[in-house]
């Protein structure tokens, strides 16, 4: 193998695939990155067996070849090099990759590419295409709600329902549920439901470049793998097997109080209260009071108290429809959802202190967030 490329491209490419390098693994070769010539390009591949990222960069290839080398070592070395031409060469029958750039030379001991885990090819199956802007917003608004603990594996993923020209993403961790609907640029031929690991979608979100407009998605026929195809990058991921909970029935159909409030103000008041809620399981208490006539608007107070620290009350104007409402939430859950909304106002719907609260942005109807309250003594 003998080729040359720019330090910038190689450095960026290693950054792209780096997140798929295994952190703790029983298979040491997954700590490595695969370098392979692919026509007139250099292909970089890393996998942690759940997810694999391949990225292509432009290169001047003189001799074909491939090798794997420790990803961290190569990445750190390349990122320290000056912005210049990098020559990579692997003498015949050797496992030592020679890297030269300007007046630097390194030899890195590698492992044969034959031993690298095969990267699944996902070409057949359900194909569709999504606009990057839509997918990015969808992922951002649901992925934080996936479960972080592994006790129920299906909840560590995002449920993705492809139906006609609509994709519905849903995530739940047992205490909250986020559902986002986005249009597909190419309709799917048949209704398909899969569970995509939350980590995979977070990576997809990171990989989608600003210069890209669409992303191609393929789910293999037995629904075990999914491919995200971008301009110079491919991400293949295992899918979570199992049945995602029937969530539509968890979304309350009615409410006794509707509060319309400014997102930024709501967020500020919740953040402020959360400072005082740190030692008490993050409890913030919301009291929504309707206005007493046409001239006075309603308000919502957001408070928290700590036996040791003290307490805090914040008040914001709100349009409150229905009865006065008292409800307590884990402040983190409210902050999480308000932080990802792009709209200026939200509506919070509640029924009673122990029934789920629903948060929806005002002006769009493609997002629903359900949060279970906390039981507290008022």
């Amino acid at each position: 193998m003998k080729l040359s490329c720019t330090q910038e491209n190689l450095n960026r490419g290693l950054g792209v695939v780096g997140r798929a390098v295994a952190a703790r693994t029983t298979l040491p070769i997954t700590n490595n990155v695969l370098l392979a010539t692919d026509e007139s390009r250099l292909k970089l591949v890393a996998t942690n067996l759940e997810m694999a990222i391949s990225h292509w960069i432009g290169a001047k290839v003189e001799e074909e070849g491939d090798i794997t080398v420790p990803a961290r070592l190569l990445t750190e070395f390349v990122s320290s090099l000056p912005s210049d031409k990098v020559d990579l060469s692997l003498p015949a029958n050797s496992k030592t990759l020679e890297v030269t750039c300007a007046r630097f030379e390194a030899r890195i001991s590698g492992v044969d590419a034959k031993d690298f885990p095969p990267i699944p090819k996902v070409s057949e199956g359900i194909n569709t295409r999504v606009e990057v802007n839509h997918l990015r917003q969808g992922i951002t608004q649901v992925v934080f709600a996936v479960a972080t603990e592994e006790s129920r594996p299906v909840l560590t993923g995002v449920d993705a329902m492809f139906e006609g020209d609509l994709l519905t993403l849903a995530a739940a961790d047992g205490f909250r549920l986020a559902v986002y609907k986005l249009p597909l640029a190419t309709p799917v031929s048949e209704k398909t439901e899969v569970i995509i690991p939350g980590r995979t979608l977070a990576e997809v979100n990171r990989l989608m470049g600003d210069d890209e407009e669409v992303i191609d998605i393929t789910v293999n026929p037995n629904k075990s793998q999914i491919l995200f195809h971008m301009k110079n990058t491919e991400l293949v991921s295992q899918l979570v097997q199992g049945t995602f909970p029937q969530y539509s029935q968890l979304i309350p159909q009615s409410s006794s109080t509707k509060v319309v409030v400014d997102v930024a103000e709501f967020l500020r008041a919740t953040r402020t209260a959360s400072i005082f809620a740190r030692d008490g399981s993050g409890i913030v208490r919301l009291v929504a009071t309707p206005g007493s006539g046409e001239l006075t608007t309603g308000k919502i107070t957001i408070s928290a108290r700590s036996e040791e620290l003290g307490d805090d009350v914040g008040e914001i104007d709100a349009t409150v429809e229905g009865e006065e409402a008292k409800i307590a939430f884990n402040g983190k859950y409210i902050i999480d959802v308000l932080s990802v909304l792009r709209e200026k106002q939200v509506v919070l719907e509640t029924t009673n202190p122990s029934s789920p609260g629903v948060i929806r942005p005002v002006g769009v109807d493609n997002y629903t967030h359900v949060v279970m309250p906390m039981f507290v003594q008022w």
Partner: protein
Amino acid sequence: MATRTLMHIDLDAFFVSVEQVLNPELKGKPVVVGGRPDRRGVVAAASYEARAYGLHSAMPLATAVRLCPQAIFIEGSFPRYREASGKFMAILADFSPFLEPLGLDEAFLDVTGFESLHGSIHRMALAIKQRVSEEQGLCASIGIAGCKVVAKVASDFSKPDGLIEVPAGEERAFLAPLAIDKLPGIGKKTEQRLRGIGVKTIGELSLVPLKALKSHFGASGEVLHHHSNGIDSRKVSPPGEAKSISRETTFDKDLSGRPMLEATLRYLSERVGSDLRNRGKQAKCVTLKLRYADFTTITRSYTLPQTTDADQAIFDTGVQLMRKALAAERQPVRLIGIGVSSLAEPSRQLVLLEPSGKRQEQLNRAIDRIRDRYGFSAIQTGRTLRLRDIFPPNDGGAFQVRETQ
């Protein structure tokens, strides 16, 4: 430190005396509280008349019957004792606000500077004994000294119906002739080990060099040294808001069998959980304490993602900590304890997907209600069944539990 005057007030044969007040026919007779003699169980309390036959608390009921067949056996009623205890503490609180209750029937009182109110501390003590006797029909023994350990030894020594004042400077002389097991904190195990090195009296213990005690007993060696010399700087601390709740027990014999350790841990977790719920609190941090056969003591803590007051959650966390600890250290266990801290007002994140937590909570509340009425051992979880023989009928008994604030 300025001179202090502390009192240790201890009710004589508390459970039995309460029964005797309710049923005067029992007075002057050998009475045992603890359950029916044909059942398995242990003596929770014995009247002085019964003690004359060699009966003592924690003794199996069967043995008690053999030693004193004519004794009257009563099952006892925990709520009654708790009520009597409440009245007793209220009387003490009238005398000094610096009150630290220890269990149901004893308390420390800091009476520094109270001489002028009653003429002397001795008179004050007599006034306390008189009120307890007149209002409750109970007998209190009182020890007066400059520190906790001496006051407690004095009240013990004065029983029954006693009053001993140990003047400042005479602490060592007072303690010296007493057998080492009279010193609080010296259990069977420690006593045996001390006897093994030829120490039989507190006086002899006070002469053992601090270094030697430390090498034998670790950190507790220092405490033994100070206490045997009549030195104890612990303050009388009114209970206030508990910052943590814990229970621990020392085994009669060092244990390495997991089932028994887990059963004990379950029992202690239930005690802690029940305390938490009684106080209307929840905890975020669970701490396991283990003392191994060689006296090394470890504590391991885990902070839960959210607060809990459930026995199950406390136990599950404790058991995981224990398994991890025992995997690293293959030694028999001498003492096991579990505690909770980072207490907060009760709150619970309600669950969107599966409401299993709610049933657990209802179960715990139901068990609490049964225990409130019939005593702690009235209902047991299956896991603790193997502890039957050492399960205390009430709060006393062989199963020493200590609560720290």
